[in-house]
């Protein structure tokens, strides 16, 4: 009995370890090799940097040769503003759709969920035309608008599910207390949505930060490139500067990891315990 349990737990852990290795391996390779000299990258790509192969040449080149700080700034601005607005509008829409019954609310809910099923990239040409017409071509605003549209459907979907788990009595109690509807949302409901908001934040940030497509078609100057697009300039058709690519990629990973660590603390459920029995 006990043996069987142990065997099962071992098997599960084996699978998990294998998956983790598979997922973390490439990242580890990128980070490891970003600290090695060019020859060492090609000679022994799988070995960690040692005293003879250690080199910061990639980082030095990246900072010297490109506008990496600007790219970083752009990525941060686009990601943070998009995330903030997706969370705000997403939570408000989710609350409205699950709390109020109004004419067309079902249709509106369906309309918003279409975005989950249809990839926004299908509309690339139309988006490009629209941005040109609006004069938003080659601006961060264009990227932010697109990312909000991209992130909203999933945010509304996830947050609606969470909102439905919040006891109805809470909002009834707030109404009896004379709390205005907007304050009910921001001061009673939103604080209880923190775990959900953290989840949505992570789900929203990662694809925006990593996106190459929309910066590629919507931005054209160095001053509006994001980090993911910026890295591409080291990938040439004939020569690829691997030191710089790996160094830039390593740095690009960092903010996402930091953000994930920050939000994962909020991912603790059970915040509603004590509200109702």
């Amino acid at each position, binding site marked *: 009995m006990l043996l069987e349990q142990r065997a099962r737990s071992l098997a599960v852990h084996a699978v998990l370890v294998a998956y983790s290795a598979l997922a973390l391996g490439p990242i580890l390779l990128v980070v490891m090799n970003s600290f090695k000299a060019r020859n060492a990258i090609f000679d022994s790509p799988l070995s960690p940097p040692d005293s003879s192969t250690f080199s910061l040449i990639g980082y030095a080149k990246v900072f010297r040769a490109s506008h990496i700080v600007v790219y970083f700034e752009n990525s941060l601005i686009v990601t943070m503003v998009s995330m903030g607005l997706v969370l705000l509008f997403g939570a408000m829409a989710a609350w409205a759709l699950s709390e109020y019954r109004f004419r067309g609310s079902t249709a509106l809910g369906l309309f918003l969920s279409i975005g989950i099923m249809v990839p926004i990239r299908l509309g690339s040409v139309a988006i490009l035309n629209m941005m040109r017409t609006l004069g938003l071509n080659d601006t961060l605003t264009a990227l932010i608008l697109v990312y909000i549209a991209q992130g909203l459907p999933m945010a509304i979907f996830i947050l609606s599910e969470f909102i439905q788990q919040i006891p109805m009595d809470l909002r*009834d109690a707030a*109404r*009896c*207390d*004379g709390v205005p509807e907007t304050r009910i949302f921001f001061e*009673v409901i939103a604080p209880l949505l923190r775990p959900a908001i953290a989840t949505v934040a992570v789900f929203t940030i990662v694809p925006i930060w990593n996106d190459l497509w929309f910066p590629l078609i919507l931005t054209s100057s160095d001053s509006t490139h994001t980090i993911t697009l910026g890295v591409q300039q080291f990938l040439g058709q004939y020569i690829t500067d691997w030191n710089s690519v790996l160094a830039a990629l390593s740095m690009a990973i960092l903010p996402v990891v930091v953000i994930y660590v920050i939000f994962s603390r909020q991912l603790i459920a059970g915040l509603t315990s004590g*509200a109702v*029995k």
Partner: protein
Amino acid sequence: MSNLRVEHLGKSYGSANVLSDINLSVDNGEFIVLVGPSGCGKSTLLRMIAGLDGVTTGDIYIGDRLVNGLAPAERRIAMVFQSYALYPHMDVRKNMTFGLKFTGVAPAERQRRVDEAARMLRLEPLLGRYPRDLSGGQRQRVAIGRAIVREPDVFLFDEPLSNLDAALRVSTRVEIARLHRLLGATMVYVTHDQTEAMTLADRIVVMSEGRIEQIGKALDLYYGPANLFVAGFIGSPAMNFFLGAVETVDGATARIVGAGFEPLALPADALDRGAKVTIGVRPEHLRIAGQGPFATSGAVELVERLGVSSFAHVRRADDKTLVVEVRGRETPEVTQNVTFRAPLQDIHVFDASGQRIDISKGR
């Protein structure tokens, strides 16, 4: 403090009628309990008074003010929920003051009200705690405190004790009764527990299937149930019913025969020959070797001994079960055949439509 009036109130969801033609008048300072089985519409009625559910037809007046179109907060009511509904991310003090911020109560006054409510409910040591650190009883006291600080005209309670364990339920019940005396406030209280209803209420409103069956004081309902539903609902264990018919009327005496009891002579004032009737007798009014015109007998199947009294379950002649309360140390043996009697004053008679026939008063 205020009175409350409900006139011809109805509620329907689509074609489903949840409440129909509810009329109720609650005096200033009165404690009214709405009681009934689940799904009878009592909670809906309470939520309509609170303004959380809309009115389909009819009017609600609080303090002679028509409140149909008013938001809950404008009705000057406060509601206590079964699930407590405390704000989980606020401490006890904040829970109580949160609503006051929006109704224009000055900070100093908020402070005073919270302190007073905390003293009344013995919540002082808990003011800095969060709901998750409180026990069920403490949470419910906080919820009541949150209602008190609003100084409402009418207090509404929606099954406030249902989530508490038995001992706590009794002590919190006493607490609520004490509060009512202290505050002298108008209170409407919903429960499915008849003990709560009987002990707390000035008047009880018995509801079933969206209708009011009877309104009255606890003992009026107990001794004079208006119909079969109230007779069966109030009292535990429930009243025993026997189907019968008026066989003959001879002068002032009617002879009623039916299954499960011996032919019964009753004053004939309100009884017609041939009328179908239901005879009801409470378990506690039947006595072994007792006196009275009503007699029934059967074999004892089971005896539940509770100490104060015992409940004998008896198989009647018409193969239904009869429950009899037996007091004292002597209880009948299982399989023993026993005859029980009840005096005239404890015999309830209902007509074919289930309405009470007052046999002593005439028609």
